[in-house]
């Protein structure tokens, strides 16, 4: 595991900081002098998980690299809400080129830095799930395969949100998007499709792969820190709920992320050299229904009569993850 869980200090590992903690145990986000790499004034929706995830991640990376960081950004929400002329919210050297080439641009930057002997400056490439799992997949796989010295961050909000909520290959089964509408007998996005990029990344045998959510900041920051200890291609897949696209309350972003993990639908783990080295255990296992219900994109499952069959299939996916990644091993079951 990349970090030592914080032992009991009124709260523990899950709060951002805590006045009782020594400085080294506080998150980067707790620091009054954090970089706010993604600054105020950006145009993300209220409660945007991606805006939050991006600041968490980049601030942590800034900390880990002594602020020697360059980022390439794919087209998408993050790019659009952060850099509409004449204003940018980025406080770091940042470039947006295209939707599908962030990883390759990252490779180029890394090559330039290497040739100039700037080994201190590190490179991040980042994008949403569309820019990562779909249109940017070729460049990403190429970057992985060459083991270029780039940390790629995917902010996964499970669809094309910037264009108005359409399906991506990261959209989960049964989710409603504007291209997977639950009409007639259809229960939204089809089962048996989609791709799970963390596993694909691992299959490239790159030094480091991790998943994280905006609900567990210490875990996320530790993974960014750990990723920066490696040279070569690294991948972190951050789960970022989207109030607009998922149809949940703007205040529920973190809770939804937490539920995704606690139900087992989003496994949180890290892998080094293609082998899983640590899994974040489920704290209190919950049925998937708890996660699905607050989201309008699953509302069609709960109409009269409810689609028990579909909910059950989603539960099976969660259970499969729990088995596959041993998400509840060693966790006491609560009565």
């Amino acid at each position, binding site marked *: 595991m990349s970090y030592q869980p914080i032992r009991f200090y009124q709260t523990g590992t899950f709060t951002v900081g805590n006045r009782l903690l020594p400085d080294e145990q506080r998150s980067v986000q707790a620091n009054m002098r954090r970089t706010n790499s993604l600054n105020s004034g950006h145009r993300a929706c209220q409660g945007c998980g991606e805006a939050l995830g991006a600041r968490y991640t980049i601030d942590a990376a800034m900390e880990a690299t002594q*602020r*020697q*960081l*360059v980022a*390439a*950004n794919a087209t998408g929400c993050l*790019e*659009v809400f*952060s*850099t*509409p*002329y*004449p204003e*940018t919210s*980025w*406080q*770091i*050297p*940042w*470039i*947006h*080129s*295209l939707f*599908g*080439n962030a990883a*390759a*641009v*990252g*490779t*180029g*930057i*890394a*090559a*330039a*830095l*290497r*040739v*100039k*002997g700037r080994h201190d*400056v590190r490179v991040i490439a980042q994008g949403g799930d569309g820019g990562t799992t779909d249109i940017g997949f*070729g*460049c990403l*796989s*190429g970057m992985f*395969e*060459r083991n*270029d010295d780039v940390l790629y961050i995917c902010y996964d909000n499970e669809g094309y949100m910037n264009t108005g909520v359409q399906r991506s290959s990261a959209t989960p089964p049964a989710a409603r998007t504007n291209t997977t509408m639950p009409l007639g007998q259809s229960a939204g996005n089809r089962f048996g499709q989609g791709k799970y990029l963390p596993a694909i990344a691992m299959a490239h045998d790159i030094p480091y792969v991790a998943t994280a959510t905006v609900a567990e900041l210490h875990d996320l920051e530790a993974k960014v820190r750990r990723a920066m200890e490696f040279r070569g291609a690294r991948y972190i897949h951050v789960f970022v709920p989207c109030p607009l696209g998922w149809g949940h309350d703007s205040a529920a972003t973190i809770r939804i992320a937490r539920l995704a993990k606690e139900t087992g639908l989003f496994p949180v783990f890290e892998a080094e050299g293609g082998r899983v080295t640590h899994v974040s255990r489920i704290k209190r296992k919950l049925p998937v229904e708890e996660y699905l219900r607050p989201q309008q994109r699953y509302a069609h499952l709960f109409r009269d009569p409810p689609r028990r069959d579909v909910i059950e299939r989603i539960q099976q996916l969660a259970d499969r993850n729990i088995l596959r990644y041993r998400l509840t091993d060693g966790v006491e079951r609560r009565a």
Partner: protein
Amino acid sequence: MLKQIEGSAAVAEAVALCRPEVICAYPISPQTHIVEALGRMVTDGRLAPCEFINVESEFAAMSVAIGASAAGARAYTATASQGLLFMAEAVYNAAGLGLPIVMTVANRAIGAPINIWNDHTDALSQRDCGWIQLFAEDNQEALDLHLQAFRLAEELSLPVMVCMDGFILTHAYERVDLPTQQQVDAYLPPYLPRQVLDPAEPISIGAMVGPEAFMEVRYLAHAKQRQALDLIPSWAEEFRRIFGRDSGGLTHAYRVDDAEIVVVALGSVLGTIKDTVDEMRTGGTRIGVLGIGCFRPWPTAAVREALQTAKRVVVLEKSLAVGLGGIVSNNVAASYAGSPDRVHTVIAGLGGRAITRQSLHRLLGQAVEGGLEPLTFLDLDHALVERVIARERGQRRSGPIAEGILRDLGVVAARAG
């Protein structure tokens, strides 16, 4: 130093002399030999420091170049044909971001039908992408244009495409004069990027620009590219001073001073045309040649001046604006002071079809006699196409044109009737 080498090798030597720092390589004929040679130079340490990156596609090649250039490295790649189209989005992007990347395009036809031979359809498809496009007439010029391209790109902070005819130049062994490193260093200063991704001075490159400023951004791109029209001639002159030969420049006028007919063309075909013109001059025809060295920005004034005396202009181009006719000829017509109906379009050499002196004599003879059609397809098998067209008229679904032609040529057994 004089050397008898392949065109690709000459270009690779020229690129290496320019001290590129990042080279992205993806194989596509006929540019492959260039990056192969550069790869060897990086591997054996002759070219250092330099990162040679084997990418997974042309789209990645241009994207890596974008990243490298934005991070302050001198970046180079090469492509052709389908590859250029595959990277098209990034080609536009590099220009939009004002990144001084240099790319060799070994001109080749675009499929379908797939065809690896030379024409100019690839480069001309990107004529509006914002890159400066230079065309080489021979291997010496191809070599020289790369030296000029880096300087031009970095001065203007614009990408430059050096176009050379695939196979005809890339694979031709010719004697070239290789400059020394000192000469090149004297001509090409180190890359000082106009903007660079640097933690010491963070900036955001690649903002989203809305209707409130997009027109201005596009206008500025246009205005900037037009600046090259002044720089290119003066640097060609400086080039001549340092290297002792004429290379580059906007246009190459050949025997146009008193010419009543001027043939306009791009690339290696100019040699054949000049030979033909020389022969026609011997016969007393007042005919000249205008080579277009810089296709973008379009050298309006230089073309207009060169065509001053011409009563008739024949634009011979290796490209086709399907549904219209010529691409180059349209540009020429817009710059010709005379009547546009005096500008004849000749589509020639598509997909590697040989352009012979014999054909040129026949063609230009027609022009002299005033019998040239406004649009001519040189050496087209009229009988064949007429048969296909006729059959298509009678049959609603006649299948792919290529298949039909092959059938008519007897290559495919007439199974389907």
